[in-house]
């Protein structure tokens, strides 16, 4: 097997490049009118997520009990929500495959799209966002930014090994355009608005 090296690989591309073109400046565009929280709610609903008002962690406990019962398998990355399944950074990510619900707190939300942001710091084990059946997300309403242009000006992406914008549950419309929630990842995503 012949191995292409970095030098030969790049040299060929350098020789092929057209004359250099300038890099355009990207301005900050005006943000649409309306409260951030309201825009977040509308956008998330359109992407299949659910928003719940939180009073305290009791709201989360009640929601878990109601939806998954006393025997529901819950893994939590949120201090104060114990869960009954271990979650530790050094565990095998596959161990979450039979978990009913994961509980995580997002670092921030995005009004434009209804997205919530996580890194390995929020997830503890990244597979919690996908391998469990349902995801319950805590979000501080004060931590909602206007749009993607603002999100990608943050430094959070430069420190995280893994970062993700999650917008509603896993979905597919690959057969005849019929929307299915819960394609490979979580079947539902519920955002509980609760100050940190």
């Amino acid at each position, binding site marked *: 097997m012949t191995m292409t090296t970095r030098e030969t690989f790049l040299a060929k591309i350098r020789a092929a490049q057209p004359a250099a073109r300038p890099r355009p400046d990207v301005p900050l*565009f005006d943000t649409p009118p309306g409260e951030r929280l309201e825009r977040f709610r509308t956008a998330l609903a359109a*992407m299949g997520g659910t928003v719940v008002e939180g009073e305290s962690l009791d709201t989360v406990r009640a929601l878990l009990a109601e939806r998954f019962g006393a025997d529901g398998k819950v893994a939590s990355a949120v201090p104060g929500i114990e869960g009954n399944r271990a979650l530790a950074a050094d565990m095998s990510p596959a161990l979450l495959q039979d978990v009913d619900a994961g509980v995580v707190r997002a670092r921030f939300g995005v009004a434009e799209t209804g997205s919530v942001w996580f890194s390995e710091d929020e997830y503890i084990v990244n597979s919690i966002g996908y391998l469990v059946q349902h995801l319950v997300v805590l979000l501080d309403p004060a931590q909602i930014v206007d749009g993607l242009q603002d999100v*990608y000006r943050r430094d959070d*992406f430069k420190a*995280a090994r893994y970062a993700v914008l999650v917008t509603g549950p896993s979905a597919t419309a*690959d*057969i005849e355009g019929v929307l299915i929630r819960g394609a*490979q990842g979580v079947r539902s995503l519920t955002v509980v608005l609760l100050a940190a």
Partner: protein
Amino acid sequence: MSDVVKGKSKRLDHAKAAGAFIAKEDHVAFHDKRLWDLRSKRDAQAHGMPEWETLRDLASGIKEHTLSNLADYLDQFITQAESHGVIVHYASTAEEHNEIVYKLMSERGLTTLVKSKSMLTDECKMREYIEPRGITVMETDLGERIQQLDNQDPSHMVVPAVHKLRADVAELFGRTIGTDPKNSDIHYLAESQRMNTRPYFVREKTAGMTGCNFAVAETGTVVVCTNEGNADLSANVPPLHIASIGIEKLIPRISDLGVFIRMLSRSALGSPITQYTSHFRAPRPGSEMHYILVDHGRSERLAMEDFWYSLKCIRCGACMNTCPVYRRSGGLSYGFTYSGPIGAIINPTYDMKRFSSLPFASTLNGSCTNVCPTKVNIHEQIYKWREVIAANHEVPFVKQEVLKMAGRLLASPTLYRGTVASLGGALKRLPNFVLYNPLNIWGRQRDLPETPAETFHEWYKKNRKVAK
């Protein structure tokens, strides 16, 4: 693809290849409607953003800047990635890409590859290379899995099985994954695929693979957009994550994502963002992350003065959804991974002879160019390809002769008027076998409109006094 690169292959007849699809009338009708629906949803999103056209200018400008400085940006990307513990590999060809994947897996004793959708691995024919060598490949995107099980290329970049109806999927799943072939309920089919696929993510001896939508030079980050979350499962569960990256995916900075992510899913599906937009920058502790940078003809294209702009493509599929020829001929008729208008300009860069019919599968209406989020001048490139193909004598003989006759006719007003005047009567009298003969592929699926009683020229002479 290696056959294509080596030029072994024979000329693809797009019109003939489309025939099988066109024969299935209910499929064509649905296909047309479904893709136009995506186009309409894209319009609703674009029209809702006053800055949309400015964003297209920016996206185009950023891509042209990056491609014209590509070696430097790749160098920065590689340096950044390596500084975070990512191992970077270089593949000039499809074969090299496939060999690297196989080597990474076989050296670690891994036997299963779970992957998210990647046009690049389809382009490289990776499954065809590693499966006979003992690697089980699980495509985890529903549409791509359907196409894998049916041994077909994806027929669309974003919705790979859009040419199939539910009954086709039911029959296919019944034949391959043991579901009830008579049950074509879409929830049942999607749930069956979920149950069939998910165990593969947690198997022993498994590696994960993703493609790459954007590669950020500033941070060495690979960005992957999915709606299923299957890229996140593929990358976050197995101990090895391989990302295959076409070199044209580079963008300079994280902040540029504020332009591209805003446009990608809006252009593709008419949703403001994909359900998952995932940014991979460094391996999880205790796991490995490998990037394979793939050239495979891209640097040759970058050197083509008229055609390098096609490298700006971000694979949203908007040009396909809007194209009247694509919507009615189906993606498989384009004979390669890339179909629709973008396929018509990319595929000939790999093998001009084989794909010489594709630039002719267009009405040159320009709609593809108008919806492209990075302003690739697709219809102009289609026209350019026709010139290049004609100059290289790759236009089939019959088409050449017909065009020569048409050229003489249209160049002479007297000859043209004389012919048109007699043609009206002739069209009414000619039996269909003369009009719809094998020389005229355009006639195959079309009926002529009624011919008017007189030509415009005759009507004008009668109704207007022309000052002599």
